């Protein structure tokens, strides 16, 4: 379960763009969890608590040793002490960075798989103690917080440790030590087998506070390290935990759960690129690159060439394509604005870091390079084959038709004058008139087809140039934005899968 959740978390961290501190934390959690799983299934149980609450004496009572230093002077324990009830697991203690190591026979066989830790106090003037506890709190499998009737309501305990550990309630127990102080030396358990009334009230109050800390159902014990009362119950509790072998996994699961919650706060909303936005961007970039201008220039060139058709005896003049237009600063500005808006709008629902990333990795480079890329792509577009040679041939042929007809009419006239009758004139005149009308018609038709061809050439030009521009826009802007949105979505779903795995347990 932990391994599967870790895999999803690793996937998330790989994809996500996180704030540096969050990323560091996530990586630390992953690394520690991996190492902890590898280090084996022993259960590390730590006694934590305030100075003077009797952690060390409780430690000795639980373990049946006298390893922990007990003294009236405050604070006593400076460095954490580890006691293994079987062969010392070196890698595990190395991972926890604990150097004071001891071994002892288990007081009961069930404790064989337990490593018992005595932690320094968390509230003394010795800052280093606090730092050591803060470090271990983040990695120990099972905590036993030792409190006493004097100190159980300290802000240092509740605000600094218990509240932040609310997610870890499965691996926390609380022990009210020095409970004999509350009963004024009387036995903790009265004759009815219940806690003595003063103690019961105290425990009730402690429970209410834990409830407020978000630790409502953690087990609470009362012990007297002095008389040994309650110690057996606590030991049995530890033995049960050790038997279940679940403390380590529960602890890691709680860590992952905590992290997942912080990461999902950071979440953002999954979104997609709208086709309308892409179309608008392409339109704007094409306009900035001068596609409509170029197409219009091509139409004019085609028309100019058509106008020259009849005038030149030496055949069809070559089509003079307009010179490529170099984009001005204003054109670049127009494209850059469009790109910036597109990227900002498309990534508006992503978390801030992702948006920053899109801005610096997509908007800015695209703003600088897209102009040149589009320009180069437009230069590569083939425009020389814009009209069919057939069309031009037909127009040329038609232009000659009236001339041929008139020449024929002339020949006929000569023939009739020399050899013919005198009835030819009306017919000849009819034919000549027809030829004239034909000439006019051909001219109109030619003009019309020329304009049609020019418009077609304009459309074709626009289409080809647009295809080139659109492809560049997609390559330089749309695809990277989509990739980022997709990475976000994949990261989020990895996180959801991880939460799901943890929830199923």
């Amino acid at each position, binding site marked *: 379960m932990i391994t599967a959740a870790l895999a999803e978390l690793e996937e998330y961290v790989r994809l996500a763009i996180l704030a540096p501190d969050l990323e560091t934390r996530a990586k630390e959690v992953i690394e520690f969890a991996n190492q902890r799983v590898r280090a084996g299934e022993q259960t590390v149980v730590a006694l934590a608590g*305030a*100075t*003077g*609450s009797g952690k060390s004496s409780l430690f000795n009572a639980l373990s049946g040793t006298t390893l922990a230093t007990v003294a*009236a*002077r*405050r*604070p006593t324990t400076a460095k954490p002490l580890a006691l293994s009830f079987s062969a010392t697991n070196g890698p595990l203690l190395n991972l926890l960075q604990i150097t004071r190591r001891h071994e002892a026979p288990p007081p009961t066989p069930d404790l064989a798989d337990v490593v018992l830790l005595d932690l320094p*106090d968390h*509230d*003394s*003037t*010795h800052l280093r103690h*606090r730092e050591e506890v803060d470090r271990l709190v983040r990695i120990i499998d099972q905590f036993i917080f030792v409190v*006493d*009737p*004097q*100190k*159980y*309501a*300290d*802000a*240092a*305990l*509740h*605000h600094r440790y218990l509240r932040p550990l609310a997610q870890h309630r499965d691996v926390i127990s609380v022990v009210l030590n020095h409970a004999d102080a*509350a009963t004024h030396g009387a036995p903790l358990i009265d004759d009815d087998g219940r806690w003595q009334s*003063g103690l019961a*009230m*105290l425990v009730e*109050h402690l429970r209410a*506070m834990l409830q407020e800390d978000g630790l409502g159902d953690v087990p609470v014990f009362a012990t007297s390290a002095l008389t040994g009362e309650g110690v057996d119950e606590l030991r049995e509790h530890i033995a049960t935990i050790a038997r279940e072998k679940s403390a380590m996994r529960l602890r890691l699961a709680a860590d992952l759960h905590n992290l997942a919650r912080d990461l999902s706060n950071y979440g953002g909303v999954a979104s997609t690129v709208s086709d309308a936005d892409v179309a608008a961007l392409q339109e704007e970039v094409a306009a900035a690159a*001068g596609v409509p*201008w170029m197409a219009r220039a091509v139409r004019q060139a085609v028309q100019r060439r058509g106008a020259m058709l009849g005038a030149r005896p030496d055949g069809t003049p070559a089509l003079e394509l307009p010179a490529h*237009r*170099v*984009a*001005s*600063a*204003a*054109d*670049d*500005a*127009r494209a*850059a*604005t469009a790109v*910036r*808006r597109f990227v*900002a709008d498309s990534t508006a629902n992503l978390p*801030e870091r992702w948006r*920053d990333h899109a*801005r610096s990795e997509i*908007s800015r480079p695209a*703003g600088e390079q897209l102009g040149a890329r589009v320009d180069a792509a437009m230069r590569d577009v083939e425009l020389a084959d814009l009209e069919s040679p057939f069309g031009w041939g037909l127009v040329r042929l038609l232009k000659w038709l009236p001339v041929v007809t008139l020449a024929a009419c002339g020949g006929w006239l000569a023939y009739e004058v020399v050899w013919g009758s005198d009835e030819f004139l009306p017919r000849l005149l009819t034919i000549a008139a027809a030829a004239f009308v034909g000439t006019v018609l051909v001219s109109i038709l030619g003009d019309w087809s020329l304009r049609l061809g020019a418009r077609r050439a304009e459309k074709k030009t626009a289409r080809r140039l647009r295809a080139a521009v659109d492809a560049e826009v997609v390559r330089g802007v749309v695809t990277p934005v989509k990739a980022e949105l997709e990475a976000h979505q994949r990261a989020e779903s990895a996180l959801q899968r991880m939460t799901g795995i943890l929830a199923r347990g």
Partner: protein
Amino acid sequence: MSTELADSLTALAGALAEVRFPLDVDGARDGDERAGALSGQIRDYLLPRAEALDAPLLAVVGGSTGAGKSTLVNSLLGRRVSQPGVLRPTTKSPVLVCHPSDADWFRSGRVLPELTRTDVVLPGTRALQVVEAPEVPAGLALLDAPDVDSIDDGNRALARQLLLAADLWLFVTSAARYADAVPWEFLRNAGDRELVVGVVINRCPPAVLGEVARDFARLLTDEGLGDAPFFAIKEALEGEMIPGSDVAPIRRWLGWIASEAGRRSAVVKQSLRGALRSLDDDVARLHRGLAEQREAADDLRSQAEAEFSAAADRVGAIVGDGSMLRGEIIAHWHDVVGTTDLMRGLDEKVASLRSRLRRWWGAEPKAEKLQDAVSDQLARVLVDETDAACDATADAWSRTRGGRALLTDDLRSPSTDFPARAAATVRSWQQEVLALVTEQGKGKRFRARLLALGTNAAGATLMVVVFASTGGLTGAEAGIAGGTSLLAQRLLESVFGAGAVERLARESRHLLEGRVRVLLAEESARFLTRVEEISVGEHVIDDLAAAAARVREARKNL
């Protein structure tokens, strides 16, 4: 003299009321808390004490939860006035015990004016219960304060407030607690203030009493409190009371202080002087905090200014370096040049009918189109660079906590009417350029020539010259733009003469840059006002320093 002190403290309280730390930078929260604590201390203690130096002493019994403060107070009096308890934290509302003759002073609300007074126990309130007890020596009152370290936030805050209002502390800890970090913060603070403190280590197991007492005494000496009277009490209750023999030394010490007016006055003055001295330190910290606020605000401001000024520079560069002379503008320029028949000698028959006709049918409409292209293109450049400046400023602001708090999404792009204003700015500039040309063409010599070219065409030509005025054109740029601007320059020179053209171009460019800066300043103002709205005024800092200096002066006479 003490009136001067009281007046100066009132002035300081007034100055403190203005102190705010609105920008979320490191230490801003501390600053707010410090300012609050300081005004509280002036109100609760410094001011009433400065006004009445001979008023009874207030001895506050403070310390950890569970150390037995209430038990100690009860035992000192020999009767139960404060409710001790097993459940932590116990004393929720403070209890003040004083001699009947002092009761009026403590009921009057001069000290701790914000606490409601009560004569009976009001559980669950923060009201100050005043108990008259003849057992207390006249001239000294004991105040049983809540704990300094329990989970109850209200208790901790009230304890802090009460301890700051004390003439004298009786600080209570226990064998289990004497090395706790939280109470030591208070003890150190007392040491810094040179406050008169008596330290009680309560609930010592009899077996280790000596060892614990020695260790605690050593800690006290290490922290500079070695001179403080130190009382160790063993854990052995008689009923609810500490045995009389154990509290006798404490009772004697308090009685000794209270018994003589001179000693009382010495304690009052020592504590007051110490508090006034430590006030200097607090004010200095507040001052630093305010300076940091101002620095942070300045940083935000200068980030915005730098980005927008860079944008103005970029616009300036684009306008001058010939990169405008491409695309649409150059196309329209070619149209203008094509119709004006430029290369013909302009000197002959310039005012002929033909030229007038051409004015209407030829160059002028085309020049107008060129003008439109210029305003359109230039406005686009302005919009883009402003957009980039907004984006970059927002980016810079979002990197600091303080900046992020001021940032809203609308700041990330220019205001909605900006494109329209940019276009208007360019058009006004064009009007100015035309006015310049007209002005230049007023002389007899020029009028005819200008008429021949057309004012619009001349103005447009001047803009083309402006667009390549920084020189240094290279490569292809020099080919197109250079050729274009050279032609335009020659054309204008043929109208106005060589020297005038250069001056006109320089002036036009100047005018444009001025307008661009004004336009961008309007945009950057959106950022700057955000900073302005939350900035702490200069006078706040000055007032604080002045008031603190006055207090410093007045305290010399104490």
